[in-house]
């Protein structure tokens, strides 16, 4: 019964797309605003952040208007937090299926990533409008975005392989989720630039892969700079190793999800 999980996954490509379509359709069924919510959420966070961090806390942004400074990080952070929380809960949310039908369980995780990517694309289009509005010229470094996104997706997938499996056994994970993600956001340069982090804490701070990734987006979009390649390289090595370990563990654990879910 040893099967190559990747070959099997390839056979289920259509299922991944079907779950994705289901998630997208179901998300905006019976909503009046529909896909506008994909923009409204990061946009409203942007307004709140601008009021709190720009008007009140006076965070330095190096001359960039704060709304676009925060929005350029917020959309990618939203993508991360949405996929982590939905991914973590995806096994239990589909317990009806998991209990009764066999299919590679990671298809649910991949569908979470894909359906959230649609929201990201919509929010990204809004970023274009904001850049035009604030007169930020696009540069060739925008080409780093797909690379950073690939690293982020791999990291997220590696993470939810663990959290979703543990959540099957201990629902505590679900309760800790929103608190954990909020703390994580403040440990990531979303609302503030990396430069405000004290020099002596920097290496500790950079243990968070999302710090390098989010910082990379902002450099590429707003400042026309490539990401810090040395740091990104380390993140890639770490993420690939993590992915290998967590995916294998997930495949081992998924065999008995149906017994406990």
């Amino acid at each position, binding site marked *: *019964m040893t099967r190559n999980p990747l070959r099997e996954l390839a*056979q*289920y490509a*259509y*299922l991944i*797309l*079907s*779950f994705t*379509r*289901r998630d997208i*359709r*179901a998300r905006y*069924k*019976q909503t009046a605003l529909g896909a506008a919510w994909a923009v409204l959420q990061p946009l409203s966070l942007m307004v709140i952040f601008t009021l709190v961090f720009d008007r009140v806390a006076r965070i330095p942004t190096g001359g960039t208007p704060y709304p676009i400074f925060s929005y350029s990080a917020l959309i990618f952070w939203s993508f991360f937090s949405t996929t982590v929380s939905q991914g973590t809960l995806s096994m239990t949310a589909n317990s*009806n*299926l998991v*209990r*009764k*039908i*066999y*299919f590679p369980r990671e298809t649910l995780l991949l569908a979470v990533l894909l359906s959230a990517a649609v929201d990201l694309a919509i929010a990204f289009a809004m970023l274009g409008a904001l850049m035009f509005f604030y007169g930020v010229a696009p540069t060739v470094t925008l080409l780093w975005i797909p690379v950073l996104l690939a690293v982020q997706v791999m990291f997220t997938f590696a993470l939810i392989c663990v959290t979703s499996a543990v959540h099957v056994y201990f629902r505590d994970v679900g309760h800790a989720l929103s608190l954990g993600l909020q703390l994580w956001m403040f440990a990531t340069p979303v609302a503030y630039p990396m430069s405000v982090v004290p020099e002596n804490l920097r290496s500790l701070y950079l243990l968070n892969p999302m710090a390098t990734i989010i910082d990379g987006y902002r450099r590429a979009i707003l400042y026309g700079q490539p990401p810090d390649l040395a740091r990104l390289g380390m993140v890639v090595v770490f993420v690939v190793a993590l992915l290998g370990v967590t995916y294998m563990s997930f495949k081992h654990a998924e*065999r*008995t999800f*149906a*017994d*406990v879910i």
Partner: protein
Amino acid sequence: MSDIVLSFDRVSKRYRLRRGWHTLSFGEAIGRLRRRVRASDTASDDFFWALRDVNFQIRQGESVGLIGSNGAGKSTTLKILSRVTVPTHGTFSAVGRVGALIEVGAGFHFDLTGRENVYLNGAIMGMSRAEVESKFDRIVAFAEIDRFIDTPIKYYSSGMAVRLGFAVAAHVNPDILLVDEVLAVGDAAFQAKCLNKLAELREQDKTIVLVTHNMTNVVQHCDRVIWMDRGTVRAAGDPEEIVEQYLQAVQPQTAAAAAPTLDESAPIRIGTVTARDHRGETDQPLVYGARATIEVEYEVTAPVSDPVIGITFVNATGHALGGLTSRLAGLKLDVSQPTGVVRLVLDPVIFTRGTYKVSVSALDERIQRFYDMKSQAASFTVDGPSLATREVSGHVVYPHHWESNGGQPS
């Protein structure tokens, strides 16, 4: 025909009872924690063995019925067969694509339309987009919901949703099909359609594993039956034989002598009840079409006015098939002696093959009050037309003949 496509080799499955920590007292929780730490968490009360050392093989093209009472391990077996879970010990192997008709419609999303759900459910069952597309019209026609195909299924009746689920699952076209109790879905016409689908798959030499409580379906549609009991295989073999054994085991014989007398002060009591075949033998099956006699001995302890004897025939699972009384034929019971015998002559026996029981009662002259009642006072088997041939169904064959427009059959 002899290649094995499904095999269980000493398969055992253990479930943890998963009593939550909150159900334990503080002391119990500490005890459990200590066992965990010592890695000796094998206290038997924490576990439940759903399967123990189960062995069986199923060959290509076979149609196998899985029977047993609730908790016998059928569902666990099916879960392992469909790869939803893995055995704790032992090995399971399968050759070919396994499809499951289990809890049809489990993958439905109620906000999506019928059409969207057909595609989604098809994908969950392992179909490709092209496959669903090519079968879409047939699926909708099978489910008989074409008018509602673009309506969200939360507005469907439960019957419609289940029919749609079955329709998708029935078109998956796997090499090995697992069917769990879905034949109970829908009305008689839809069930007929489902049975046709099953017959079609059998003709295509597909392997079928059927789990059901409907013994008629098992006898009529399976080549072989596996009877599971408390996590083990109790018996396997010819459907009619195994079903018969199973039914006798779940409905144990009640000895007539053990049945208590209803009312000690009643003037008439039922004694021994015996079924005799056309030769008067008591240890032979009754023969369909021949004569048979149900002999009832009774005891008269006080003067009684025109009592009535009632006899009800009961099938192996205890369902009453029909009863009659001595009053119907206008018989006047002889109560002048302290004991007597009354015989019900069946001429001919109209039962199909199987095991039957008789309940015998003695009633007052208005057929209202029971003087005595011996439930399942005797049992007998019948040698007659078998359900397995599918030429008859149910328990009785009414006295009949056929005529066609040409005239009578030869």
